[in-house]
Each structure stands twice: as C-alpha cells, then as structure tokens.
C-alpha cells in the first residue's frame, strides 16, 4: 500500500489491510468494533478515497509520482522509530489482568455509552454535525 506506484493497487492493498485489521479485532473479542470498522473504514473510507481518486486523476491513468528522493533516509528514520517502539513494548510493564470480556460486547458497549460515556456521545454528535456542515460548505459550488 505504501510502496506501490499505482494508486489503484494502493487502494486495493488498503482495503485488504483494513479487512485484516478487522480480523484482528475479532481475535481481540471486539466483535462490535470489527463490524464498525468494516462499515466505516473498509467500506465508507474506501469509497471516499475512490471518489477522490477518480475525480483527481484521469480514469485511465492512476500512476502516482515516485516517492521523494530521500526515501532511504526516511526509511531509516522509521526503522529507528520502530526499534524504539520495540524496546518500549518489551521493556514496559504493561498493566495486565484477567479479562472478563464475554464474546458479545455489543450490549456492554451500548450500556456504557448511554451511561458513563453519554457526554462524549453528545459532543461527538456535535462534532459530526460540524464535519457535515464543513464538508458541505467546502464542496458547495462557489
């Protein structure tokens, strides 16, 4: 996805990657999140990207320019950061405990969203409204 020079391939790789990630969620007993993830990121986001790609490129030509020249430098940089994260992951005493999560989390999530996380939900609704207004404003014909 990152390295391909063809936007089409990149998008397909992206969809594949994100489907894989939703698989990981299922492994982590987060079935609800997996569904949401497929709905939002795999379907909706890909559609957005595809629309963007179609508008901004001539349909036949999905070639995208070569990466910037210092790509090895940046690769080294990322690698360094990766090693740092690796050390961090294995050195840190993460908090562990026995999980009480059952196989179906939908009900629990729903309950806590309308009790302890009610306020964030409201704020997110305002947030989504503003995103809607903003997108509408930006896309509107001048």
């Amino acid at each position: 996805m990152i390295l391909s020079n063809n936007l089409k391939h990149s998008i397909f790789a992206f969809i594949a990657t994100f489907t894989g990630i939703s698989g990981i969620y299922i492994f982590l007993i987060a079935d609800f999140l997996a569904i949401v993830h497929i709905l939002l990121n795999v379907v909706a986001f890909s559609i957005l990207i595809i629309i963007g790609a179609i508008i901004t490129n001539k349909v036949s030509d999905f070639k995208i320019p070569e990466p910037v020249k210092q790509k090895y430098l940046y690769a080294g940089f990322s690698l360094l950061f990766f090693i740092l994260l690796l050390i961090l992951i294995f050195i840190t005493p993460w908090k562990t405990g026995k999980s009480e999560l059952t196989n179906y989390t939908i009900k629990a999530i729903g309950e806590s969203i309308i009790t302890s996380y009610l306020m964030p939900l409201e704020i997110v609704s305002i947030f989504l409204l503003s995103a809607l207004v903003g997108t509408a404003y930006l896309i509107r014909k001048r």
Partner: protein
Amino acid sequence: MNSLYTYLLVSAILFCLGLYGVTIRRNALLILMSIELILSSANINLIAFSRFGALSLDGQIFALFAMVITLAQAAVGIAIILNVYNTFRTINIDKLDISRNK
C-alpha cells in the same frame, strides 16, 4: 501467539509503515491513507490493552469514538483535497505553488 505483545508488535509495524508513508508520499490521497493506518494501529493498541490489560471496556469505547471521528475528519480532508484540486489541478503537495496557474 495470542498474547499482548503480538498485537503491540503488529500495531508498531503499522504505525511505522504509516509514518514512512506520510513522509515519503506526495500524493494527498496516499498521505491520508497512511495517516489512517497510524490511527488503526492506535486502535489496535487500545483494543488489545482493553482485552489483556484493563478490566473494562474503556479502550474499546475509545477506539469506537476514534474511528467515528477519524472518518468524519477524512471526509473533511477529502473535501479540502478536492478544493485544492479544483484550484491547482493537482494533488501532489510538492507542486502546490501560489504562482501556478489554474
């Protein structure tokens, strides 16, 4: 295999790949996708910690909100990118230049 460290490792790989993509790519859409990758790595982290570490659903809920917010931002982002495309006829962010003609 099915331990916390595996998932953290996967998420770290995704994070660094995303970072690498952001730094080397010049196509706006690809940058957006790379950033999305970083965000899902954070989500994996959250859910994995929620599964193995903490005894609560907090992490999952955080991840849920994060997904929704990210998607909304991506929508705004695409709108901005389309606007840029309308003005400059390119979405290569290195080629954006005030003096460039339409």
